[in-house]
């Protein structure tokens, strides 16, 4: 992980340290953005926006929190904002399994590769379920780290993750069968 010294130096105004810090985290930032938004261009945009925000708000990071969760919080917030603005039809109700009806049909038709299946299935998840999966599997976060990043209670994180996995199973089964998902 990133050393605390580098962070401290960055916070005290050492611009080189700050730039170095950004370079260390940029891939992590991009990765999360990519899997949440499932789109390269959007991921590039969101990641850059996140890096800029980290640059400007580095002083607001408090050492008692983990730097990586702080970083992931920023990028997931930006992605969720983008996601909401781009896909207004998706229900934001966190307690329901939401399927994007139209899009899932399109994706079914188009998704030929198995490799894309799972990415597309992830994209079908509601935003917070999706974020939890991404942080769990792309960032290897523990339940607590996910809870810190998304500012959710621990039990909610577990609940989202468990349901997300169940939902992904259903979606992938449907893809394999070639039927309508949901």
């Amino acid at each position, binding site marked *: 992980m990133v050393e605390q010294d580098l962070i401290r130096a960055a916070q005290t105004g050492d611009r080189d340290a700050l730039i170095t810090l950004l370079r260390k985290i940029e891939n992590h930032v991009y990765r999360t953005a990519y899997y949440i938004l499932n789109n390269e261009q959007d991921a*590039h945009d969101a990641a*850059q926006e996140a890096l800029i925000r980290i640059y*400007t*708000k580095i002083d607001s990071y408090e050492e008692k929190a983990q730097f990586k969760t702080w970083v992931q919080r920023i990028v997931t917030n930006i992605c969720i904002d983008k996601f909401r603005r781009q896909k207004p039809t998706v229900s934001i109700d966190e307690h329901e399994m939401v399927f994007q009806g139209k899009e899932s049909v399109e994706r079914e038709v188009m998704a030929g590769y198995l490799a894309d299946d799972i990415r597309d299935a992830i994209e079908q998840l509601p935003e917070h379920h999706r974020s939890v999966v991404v942080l769990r599997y792309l960032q290897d976060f523990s339940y607590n780290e996910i809870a810190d990043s998304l500012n959710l209670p621990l039990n909610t994180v*577990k609940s989202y993750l468990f349901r997300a996995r169940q939902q992904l199973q259903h979606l992938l089964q449907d893809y394999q069968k070639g039927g309508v998902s949901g």
Partner: protein
Amino acid sequence: MKCQEAEEWMQRYLDHDLNEEDRSLLFEHIHSCEACAEAFERLSDLSARLEKLPQVMPNFSLVDAILPQLEEIDRARLEGGSTAETSALPIMSMDKSASDEFPEVSSGRNVRRRSGGRTLQRSWIYRYGALGAAAVIILGVFIYQYEPRTLSDAEVSSALQQSESLNDQHTSSDSAADAAPDETALQFKMEDSNTNNHEVSPELPDQTAKAPVIDKQPSSTDGSPAAGDSNQSGNSPQASQPDARSGGNSASDQLQTGSQDNSSAGNSSGADQAQPEDQEAMRTEIFKNAEGGADSADPNQQTEQQQEPSDKAIVGDTADGGYWLTGQPAVWSSPDGVFEAEVKEEHLYIYKWESEERKQVHAELLDGDWVTGGWSADGHIFTYQTEKDGAAINHKFEAGKTAETNAAGEQP
């Protein structure tokens, strides 16, 4: 272990959240339960696939791509110290106006992102601004509305009338309104109208959505329109005096101004204090007026303000110790609780409580418009004031007498 529990434990196991002991229990169950064994296998497969998701990387160095913007931010900080991100991104030009080599637009993507950022920030600002404004308005309405008011259909309509006209033109109360609007009445208390409106609006289908400002102008011109009412009442913004129970139109006018004032004054309770009786009378009248003719007056302002209080005007206090019940006139109880004075439909009724039963001991037609009233400390004398032709008249009723003697007579 039950299968449902096992299912949860499987998930936790995949997240390395089970201790050794629980792991053993879980596998014990899985070995003995075919359904769970199958479920576990599917879940494990999924998890493995998720673990294998490629660790994607950006196509180019993101940090390099944003360096120009970071420089702008630094420059902005040095120059102005405004919030770096916001100022740097959307307002960089402000800082760099002098320099031509403002590298803001380095690439299409950057521009887009900046615009996106700016738009994002602005949209958030607008969003929160709108919410904030709405919240302020609603609060204002509540504050204004905090005043009990009686509400009857007639009142409602008149109130609506009033409010409507209040906002725009005097149109609203044509039908019901009497020609002689009580200017002062129009000045009505915003609260009243507001309240009225609020209550009224839902009831008056013909009313425009916004409860018209209901100034307590009574629709029927019972009392003499007392231009001096407002003066009398001395109530600042609103002409609480319901003298002119006349048309909502004029009322509207007044209301308009009044409401404006009222809005600013915004304190129904304050107004209440000033003229509880007036308000009451006015309210009833306003409602009557409102019924008459709510035009399209569009008292947005008022409506909002009015909306609030009317909802709560179930029971409210008048300044002189009386109280309003929704749809009922003002009632004053004597300190000893033996007597009650009630103003209803331009009459004053005095009741006496005898073994939990209210018995009317006196009734009289009000000489003029109701202004205010109150019981004496010993609870036997009810003093009240009406206004007629611009002049205040004091009255006194001695409830001590068993009969309905109107002891004091009307003129002081």
